[in-house]
């Protein structure tokens, strides 16, 4: 039992170790340089990642509340990798920040919450994990302490997520009222798709929809993304979203499987609305962060399309897409973050002639955007292609056509940024940016990731073998 505990919860224990370590250091008034703190955390994150890959063990503990499988392990690894990249990228922003240690405290706590959420076999456990991953995030959003926008964003986030949690919790308690249990397996065995169950399900769905910012539950996204510091924005749009998506397929596929016909059409509606609204708004954004925020809403539409396929291929393509999405989006955010912290500029127009002065960064951003737009042979194309293929298995060609049309619309605005960087003339482009080592490493990881997942097919097949 004790051995199980240590083996199955090793990633969680590692994170708890970081949290307590930081806490004691903080309480003990340790005068550590920010860089030291960052390096320490990064090393432990790498260790967590390595342990996640090396030790293989599966099982259930805590009275079947907490379980681990190879797939969950992989999902946790993906999230840890993403967090590591973000941690590396926040170097420039954090190095002069007064509260770097607290930032990491909060960051790791949210990651821990996500891990619990992933491992939960029970709606209550899931809810606890969800809150643990949300509340510290709102504090992180507020981390540009002298900026009003940042505080406003944090406030908006906490209020709207309280609202969504309320609905979610109501859905969960109704489920409990109907079934008499909150464990996944008991609910799966008991539900049949009665109107009351549908109502409860819709509330739970709305809770998920809020987190992944599916239309019409997305309204908080743009404001919060814009107000938050860039590393937090990227964390919100990539890691936090990825974790929820992982849980979402588990809940849909194993808990609500018998209601599949109903939620297929719900996802259909959400998917179409999300793609359309996300794209139409992204088209006219001038602020890079806002632009990436709306484009990430549009991406969720594609993900919902893939999920609606209800097959092994759907789960695989989702996980594969999230992996690619982490690389592509973090590469884009990484460059935006460098520019922002060097010059405080975030407008698309500021990137005019960027290629003349910063060719490498321009290429990085271009590859990332191409990948987000889904242009072959970048990884993003395969991600989208698999999602569409998984959705197409249902034979709903109308939905596929809408998705394909949206790919074109999105191409337009991604290309706009590429055009600004490479083709627009600017007498005084942003000057050359000196990239410190750790953001550089982060960008290299991202680009290598985009290229490898795009050109080498092993990743997809590996995920597929785990899912089936």
């Amino acid at each position, binding site marked *: 039992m004790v051995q199980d505990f240590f083996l199955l919860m090793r990633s969680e224990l590692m994170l708890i170790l970081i949290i307590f370590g930081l806490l004691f250091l903080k309480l003990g008034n340790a005068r550590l340089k920010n860089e030291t703190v960052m390096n320490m955390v990064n090393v432990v994150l790498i260790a967590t990642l390595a342990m996640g890959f090396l030790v293989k063990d599966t099982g259930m503990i805590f009275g079947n509340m907490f379980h681990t499988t190879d797939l969950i392990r992989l999902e946790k690894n993906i999230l840890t990798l993403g967090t590591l990249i973000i941690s590396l990228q926040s170097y420039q922003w954090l190095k002069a920040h007064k509260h770097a240690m607290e930032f990491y405290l909060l960051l790791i706590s949210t990651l821990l919450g996500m891990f619990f959420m992933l491992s939960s076999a029970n709606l209550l456990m899931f809810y606890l994990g969800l809150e643990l991953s949300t509340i510290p995030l709102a504090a992180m959003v507020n981390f540009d302490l002298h900026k009003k*926008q940042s*505080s*406003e964003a944090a*406030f*908006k986030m906490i*209020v*709207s997520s309280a609202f*969504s949690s309320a*609905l979610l919790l109501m859905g969960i308690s109704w489920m409990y009222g109907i079934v008499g249990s909150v464990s996944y397996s008991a609910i799966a065995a008991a539900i049949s798709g009665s*109107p009351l169950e*549908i*109502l409860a399900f*819709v*509330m739970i769905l*709305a809770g998920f*929809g809020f987190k992944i910012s599916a*239309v*019409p*539950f997305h*309204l*908080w996204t*743009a*404001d919060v993304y814009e107000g938050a510091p860039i590393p937090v924005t990227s964390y919100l749009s990539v890691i936090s979203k990825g974790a929820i998506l992982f849980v979402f397929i588990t809940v849909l596929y194993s808990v609500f499987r018998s209601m599949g016909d*109903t939620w297929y*059409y*719900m996802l259909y*509606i959400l998917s179409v609305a999300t793609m359309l*609204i996300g794209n139409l708004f992204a088209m*006219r954004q001038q602020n890079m962060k806002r632009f990436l925020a709306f484009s990430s809403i549009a991406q969720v539409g594609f993900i919902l399309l893939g999920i609606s396929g209800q*097959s*092994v*291929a759907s789960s*695989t393509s989702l996980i594969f897409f999230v992996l690619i999405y982490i690389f592509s989006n973090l590469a884009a955010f990484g460059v935006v973050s460098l520019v922002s912290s060097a010059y405080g500029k975030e407008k698309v127009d500021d990137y005019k002639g960027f290629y003349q002065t910063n060719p490498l960064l321009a290429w990085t951003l271009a590859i990332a955007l191409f990948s987000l737009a889904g*242009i*072959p*042979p970048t990884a993003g194309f395969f991600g989208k*292609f*698999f999602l*569409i*293929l*998984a959705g*197409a298995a249902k034979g709903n*060609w109308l939905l596929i*056509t809408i998705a*394909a049309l949206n*790919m*074109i619309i999105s*191409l*337009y605005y991604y*290309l706009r940024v590429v*055009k600004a960087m*490479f*083709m*627009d*003339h600017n007498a005084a482009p942003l000057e050359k940016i000196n990239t410190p080592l750790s953001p550089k490493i982060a960008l290299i990881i991202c680009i290598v990731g985009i290229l490898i997942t795009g050109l080498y*097919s092993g990743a*997809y*097949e590996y995920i*597929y073998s785990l899912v*089936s």
Partner: protein
Amino acid sequence: MNYALLSALLLLLPLASFVVLGIWGRSIFRKASGIIGTAVLGTIAALSVYIACQYFLVDGQLNGTYQPIIALQTEWLKFGYKELSIDIGILLDPISVMMLVVITVVSLMVHIFSLGYMKDEERYSTYFAFLSLFTFSMLGLVISVNIFQIYMFWELVGVSSYLLIGFFFTKPSAVAASKKAFIVTRFADLGFLIGILILGIQTGTLDFSTIIDRLSNPQSEAFISMTSAGFLGLSTLTWALILVFMGGAGKSAMFPLHIWLPDAMEGPTPVSALIHAATMVVAGVYLVARLFPVFHLDEIAMSVVAWVGATSALFAAIIATTQTDIKRVLAYSTMSQIGYMMFSLGVSGYGGEAGLGFTASMFHLFTHAFFKSLLFLGAGAVIHYVHSNDMTDMGGLRKHMPVTHATFLLACLAIAGVPPLSGFFSKEEILLAAYEGNKAIYFIALFTAGLTAFYMFRLYFMIFWQKEKHYDPHHGEGPMSMKLPLIVLSLLTIVTGFIPFAQYVSSNGKGFDTHLHLMFSIAPVAMVIIGIGVAYVLYQKANDKPTNLANAMGGLYKAAYRKFYIDELYLFITHKIIFRFIGKPAAWTDKNIVDGTVNTVASATDDVSFMIKGWQSGKVQQYAMYFFAGALLLAFIFIYLWH
């Protein structure tokens, strides 16, 4: 013979050249980059000619039929869906080997020409890097074993042509053109992608030969299931093929997806010779030819191909008669000639002499590649000399540019279809196939042949005859590197018509004989003579006849000059309809709801806490309201309406 090694080398060399020139071109190989690129192209051109000789003369035939050779194949990715997997490989069969020769030879000529033409360009090495990338992607496209592989290279071709068209990125029109080309063809590619999905899911494979095996037999399971189920009155097979064709039509600039081609002339002229004459634009024809054994079984898809081709041929020829930009005339003429290739496939039968249309189409693709790139390179030389694209700035150039004049005239005669130049033979076969397949299309094609002769000679007379203008070129006709490709290509233009093409390339691999029917040739040749005659009368000397004629034709001339308002129609649909009815409301919501919040925050004064301000702005409540309404609506729909 080791095809795997040679053909892999064929792909890897230009890729390596792209990487090397792309990374070190600006620093180390600044001067040498042109030479490096050209040397690589020379090597692979020799390689592909060697492969072609080996394939056609030694290894390709088995019992009198050309067999495809899979030089290389490896499974690259398993989908986990219905055994679907993607292979990457190299397929050598008559049409792909022919394409290899066309691409490498034309690309080599363009490289050599560019050595002189682009000499003073600041981004000289980048240009050659892009050319290498384009050549690599185009070669990858034609040797694909798998419909998915072709799609990937297809997009790569799109990306590299985007880079090349937008090469003069300081010109706003070039940037706009490259974007337009990219987005229009991407739109078409969507159809292609959906077509691939349908084909893949229905037949359970993406492999060309397996798709063809499973679908070309009307008794097969896949064929029956695809023809029995349908959507909107057409069978699944028809839909799949039409969607695949849509991708092809986009790349090949078929009506109504042609709008990008004339604008794409903003790119450097040698690029147009490569991309818009011989390689990328014929990719659509190649795609249909590749799937021809499936296409010919579906009458509706075939007639779509035929009529889209015929419409484009006629439509583009009419527009070409009114344009004054030398490159735009050539662009429309390309579109028209590709229309010929397309409808020739569309009217063709399968196997033996019934498959004449297929052979004729490929033959025309082959001959057209040489004389059209010759025309473009000639135009490049003229533009280089005159520093203008406009025909009204030119005239009397035959004395100034004797080599260009002679080769350009030869190419004009070839494209018009004057015997015994190559264009005559291939066009003759197309007309014969159309005559046997579809009389209406035959007459359209015949009329278009006359128009072709007319606009080409209008172009020729306006550039090289008429009254001499004052030129200030600071240099002669051009360096040897610019003249040599012209000469080589004109030799090819003369020679290629005599190749017994039907022996090598046919719809089912079995060669057959073609004969020249003298009686049949009378009508087309007469049309050509009339066309040239009219052009001579109207344009050989500057006079006011063309203007009078244009006035007399009034509306029709104006409509043709404005390209039948197709661009305006697209603009109307995108700006007036999409932007007004979708974009504007979206913008309004965004401005008033999303931006409004930010603006409120920005204007908040220091003495009022922004948190209260944010609260008072009421927007978060609004968000919550939408949220709640959305959830309620979903619940309502699925509880009351769905069941």
